């Protein structure tokens, strides 16, 4: 393989690796792309920023042939192309690591890496496992990963799977002699910080022989890893910034068209009475299959963050408190009453709410309407006796749509058609409609949301806390945990190892926490 050496460009005038001119794409009722321009140079990492709905995903899909633009041109290395399919795009050297991982879980890593372009790995329909392993090993070597190519994909860690994805995308080098263009769509959204560092190292290595388009909601990451950033807004390109010396606030301003609020986490909203409220949730030496002897106390009106690396067991603690994961021993009380955790029903009845991390699979029912999703839990709020009163439901839903400023054309719209942020708000509203919420368990509530939507979710969390709701937060990033929490519990290997006080004005730094986590 000559991949590592292809960065030695011998051509005189550097041609752009990829160029997009005036790309337009209409969907019924909306213009997703409205004349987007984009230039990706050879061997650079280009950041792509923009709020949800700015047209990023449509643009990316157009670049890998999943969406056909209505107008505009795509040029690859000075040649105008039409991309009709993923294969077409791959033939032109463009490959994408999808936001939600696109690996077949029950195949080996090796098969996933060569999937769709097995080359010598398959002769006349017959697998040659040795060759295939070798091909995969080559790919993994390129990015310096030590995964066993014959391991089953679903036995790998999340970060390892991301590596497999990248190794897979790099297979497009086999289809073209030119350096490839690799698109990474939100690669960090589900990674823990240590894993993110590994990923960034890989991205920098990629730059040696490829061009990279890097998409992330986390502007600090974008500035960290990219050479330039291109910003989209409302389906149009609004500018390009070299990352050297740029600040997240600059980008943010471009993305939303005005200066972003400095108080991202709405700390100003946090209210603190001097008298500590009585503890609402008390967990005493709770053990489950992946955590042991966890003690936890959350007071009314308090936001407690739990941080920990992957495998620390914090997700399972969160689910256990909702009765969605079995607890083996321990005692959990809510306002002094024992919480029934034999199933989710007991927790719900006691006023515990849970917002799962996997919104699309566990949080919402995609084909059902906003109203149905919002009213799935608290029946009393919409019923008289056993009957649903449509009027009551409509009024209530509309009221919450307005209160949380959920952007939906109608309460009857399928929730799957809303943006992530609005979906998340509906999921949150589910726990609020009855007004009986006492404890809210938030598992990565801002995963995959853009800055604007995040900010709104943060504001909502503050408001709920101020109204006395106790909150357990598994944050998307350490910054978020620090920014939002009043206290932070660090979990390590299934145990709560450290409690860090986190008052407004006296916040610890991420570095402090990382030390405790590993």
């Amino acid at each position, binding site marked *: 393989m000559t991949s590592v050496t292809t960065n030695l460009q011998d051509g005189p005038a550097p041609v752009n690796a990829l160029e997009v001119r005036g790309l337009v794409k209409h*969907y*019924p*009722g*909306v213009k*997703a792309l409205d004349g987007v321009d984009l230039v990706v140079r050879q061997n650079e990492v280009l950041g792509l920023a923009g709020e*949800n*709905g700015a047209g990023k995903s*449509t643009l990316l*899909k157009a670049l890998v042939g*999943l*969406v056909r633009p209505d107008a505009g041109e795509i040029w690859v290395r000075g040649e105008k192309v039409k991309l009709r399919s993923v294969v077409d795009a791959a033939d032109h050297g463009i490959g994408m690591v*999808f936001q*939600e991982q*696109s*690996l077949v*879980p029950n195949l080996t890593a090796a098969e996933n890496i060569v999937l769709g372009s097995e080359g010598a790995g398959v002769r006349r329909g017959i697998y040659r496992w040795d060759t295939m392993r070798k091909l995969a090993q080559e790919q993994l070597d390129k990015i310096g990963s030590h995964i066993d190519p014959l391991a089953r994909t679903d036995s790998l860690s999340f970060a390892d799977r991301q590596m497999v994805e990248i190794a897979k995308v790099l297979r497009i080098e086999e289809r073209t002699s030119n350096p490839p263009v690799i698109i990474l769509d939100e690669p960090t959204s589900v990674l823990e910080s240590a894993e993110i560092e590994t990923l960034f190292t890989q991205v920098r290595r990629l730059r040696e022989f490829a061009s990279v388009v890097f998409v992330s909601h986390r502007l600090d990451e974008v500035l960290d890893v990219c050479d330039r950033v291109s910003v989209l807004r409302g389906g149009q390109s609004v500018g390009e910034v070299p990352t050297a010396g740029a600040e997240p606030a600059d980008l943010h301003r471009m993305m939303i068209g005005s200066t972003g609020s400095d108080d991202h986490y709405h700390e100003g909203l946090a209210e603190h009475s001097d008298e500590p409220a009585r503890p609402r949730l008390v967990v005493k030496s709770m053990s489950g299959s992946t955590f042991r002897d966890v003690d936890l106390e959350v007071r009314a009106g308090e936001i407690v963050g739990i941080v920990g690396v992957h495998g620390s067991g914090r997700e399972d603690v969160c689910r256990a408190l*909702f009765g*969605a994961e079995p607890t083996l021993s321990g005692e959990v009380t809510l306002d002094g009453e024992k919480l029934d955790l034999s*199933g*989710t*029903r007991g*927790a*719900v009845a006691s006023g515990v709410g*849970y917002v*799962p991390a996997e919104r*699309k*699979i*566990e*949080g*919402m*029912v*995609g*084909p*059902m*309407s906003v109203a*149905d*999703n919002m*009213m*799935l*839990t608290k*029946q009393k709020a*919409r*019923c008289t006796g*056993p*009957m*649903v009163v449509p009027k009551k439901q409509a009024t209530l839903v509309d009221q919450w749509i307005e209160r949380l400023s959920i*952007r939906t*054309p*109608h*309460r*009857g*719209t*399928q929730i*799957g*058609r*809303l*943006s*992530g942020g*609005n979906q998340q708000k509906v999921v949150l509203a*589910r726990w609020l409609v009855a007004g009986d919420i006492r404890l809210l368990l938030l598992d990565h509530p801002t995963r995959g949301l853009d800055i604007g939507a995040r900010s709104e979710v943060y504001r909502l969390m503050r408001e709920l806390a101020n109204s006395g709701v106790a909150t357990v937060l598994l944050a998307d990033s350490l910054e978020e945990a620090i920014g939002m929490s009043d206290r932070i519990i660090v979990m390590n290997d299934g145990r709560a190892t450290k409690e860090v006080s986190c008052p407004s004005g006296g916040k610890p730094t991420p570095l402090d926490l990382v030390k405790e986590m590993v």
Partner: protein
Amino acid sequence: MSTPVITEPASNPAAEPAVVTGAPTAAQRVTSFMPVIALVALLAALTIADPDFLTQRSLTAAVRTSAPLVVLAAGATLVVLCGGIDLSIAALCSLSTVFFAMWLPDLGGLTILVAVAAAGAIGAVQGIAHVVLRIPSFVVTLGGMSIFSAVALVISDAGPIRVIDRDATGWLNLYVAGYLPMSFFVALLVVAVISLIIKLTPLESFVRATGYSESAARLAGTPVDAVKVAAFTVSGACAGLAAVMLASRNFSGSPTMADNLLLPAVAAIVVGGTAITGGHGSLWRSLAGALVVTLLRVGLPIVGVPSAWEQILYGAIIVAAVALTLDRSKVLIIK
């Protein structure tokens, strides 16, 4: 449906300013009427093949014939809507005919209720086994199918049991308003009542949420397990009611009487356009589907299609009917 690792590739591209309206499009409206269109088309075709087919008496006979199938399919539709499948309905129905015939001399008119309740209880047991043991419904009900058949054979001593007292079920052979057979009227009533109960209570969202996405429903705190057990119970009770209809029609109960109705019932559900993967569909669709299947079963031979060709046509037509009625916008992956 397996959990998609990627949500459907090109679906919500422009989610943001969500200008999409909540109202169904014209195409969707047509799809929701497809089962009825298929029914009418089939009727027209049969009439063309044999003009004598389209008479009031012949139609009355056809709907009367369809009644047990409608009831069976309606009950099982609930289970399918919850994302499961009930393969035991036919065997349970046979068993119930035996129950009915055996108990009638002692219980008289009450037997109908008791048989339906017994079948419902048996359905509930299956539902509980499915929910508690976490065995796929396909396997639970496949096992149930053979167990019920065995029990029916043993308690009936493998023979039919005569229904001597016809008064208890005589009313099922009456006609409403002179034309509408009572058994079909009861079937309609069952469909209507179950539909109404579901529609007017939170059950509708429970059932659909369970069918579309069980894990999301569970984490939203909906009583998923209770809903599933209830669905199996209703499915069982419907099998019991269908058994009463069959026993009243055949004047006997027999351990194999309804065994052959399993595939037609499932076909009726699918022909109606209910997604076999759960969530999307309705009992009304199954009603239309059951009528289509009945017309195929009785209509083809009556209009003179030879037996070999009848089977070939039956195969081709049900596939075509499903191709027409399935609303693919609600089903992401066709397996």
